[in-house]
């Protein structure tokens, strides 16, 4: 029965959400904390924070980890399948049938009219990522990143993996400056409370 509950919880939170994984997190929260009471609010927040420390899609990390905690390896696979499989199947069916019509005038019209919609969606996503990058960096620093990044990618044709890899190494090995002692103090302060 537990496995059935895992399936229902993650199927429901995935099929009711749109806008990619991060925007469906409140729905996962509702199932895991409110409906099935598998964990408390704080524990869920901690798991979410830890998931965000790692790269890749957040939704499947949450589903897989929570599924694993509740139902072992089977629970993990179950939760991932419930999260991903139904919409992947829909995606394959819809796109394969769209591409099976070739050189029909109205189908080509449909394909062309979708591109500006994609442009807007990508533009909105760009803006959201720009806004959220302000949480970690100051605006002048972001602008330098943007200009240098644009130059490296667009004019030197450097593979993005090399740039991101370099940035990650820099993030790990760059010495932690004065701000770190502040951070240490506030952490000490909060543990004393």
């Amino acid at each position, binding site marked *: 029965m537990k496995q059935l509950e895992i399936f229902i919880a993650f199927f429901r939170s995935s099929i009711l959400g749109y806008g990619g994984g991060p925007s469906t997190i409140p729905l996962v929260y509702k199932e895991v904390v409110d409906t099935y009471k598998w964990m408390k609010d704080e524990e869920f927040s901690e798991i979410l924070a830890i998931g965000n420390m790692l790269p890749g899609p957040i939704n499947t990390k949450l589903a897989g980890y929570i599924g694993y905690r509740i139902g072992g390896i089977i629970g993990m696979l179950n939760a991932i399948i419930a999260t991903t499989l139904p919409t992947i199947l829909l995606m394959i069916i819809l796109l394969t049938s769209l591409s099976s019509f070739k050189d029909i005038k109205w189908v080509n019209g449909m394909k062309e009219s979708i591109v500006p919609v994609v442009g807007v969606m990508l533009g909105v996503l760009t803006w959201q990522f720009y806004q959220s990058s302000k949480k*970690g960096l100051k605006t002048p620093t972001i602008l330098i990143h943007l200009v240098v990044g644009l130059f490296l990618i667009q004019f030197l044709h450097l593979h993005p993996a090399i740039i991101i890899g370099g940035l990650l190494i820099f993030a790990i090995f760059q010495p932690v400056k004065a701000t770190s002692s502040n951070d240490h103090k506030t952490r000490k302060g909060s543990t004393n409370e």
Partner: protein
Amino acid sequence: MIYWKLFLSFLITNLLGYGGGPATIPLIQNDVVTQNHWLTQQEFHEAFAMGNALPGPIATKMAGYIGYKIGGIFGSFIAVFATVIPSLLLMILLIGLLYKNRDSIRVKRMTAYVKPTIVVLLGLLTFQSFSDSFHDIGAFQVIFIAVCTFFLMEKCKIHPAFVVLGALIYGAINL
């Protein structure tokens, strides 16, 4: 060996995509369209539009579809596996270590440092889709469709599925 290439491609894109599934979109495009020519830019646009119209996580939908197109059902499995399992395994195995370092500045910096590069990649992708579209259907149609999309999605908060459907109907009749 196509399955091995698929696996590596989706493994690397997802290990670099800090900021959740949407952050991996421009990295997937770069690998799948620019480097490997598995999909045309137009096919990528269609997949992204459909992925946004359907519910659920976007990165796995893209991986599942692209994998299927390149290597059938097994290809789809490989691409989704490479997207989901590595970072999930890291999480399950390293949860204690991650928990201890959850306030570490170095770890927090990683996501912060990567984000502007994702902004650049997404911005370039936005520019490319508009310039492709100008070339295909002309400025007037592009601006008309883009303004309607923005208004319906961002101001009226209409579900993207209906916006995509509306654009498809408009295209079938008018273009």
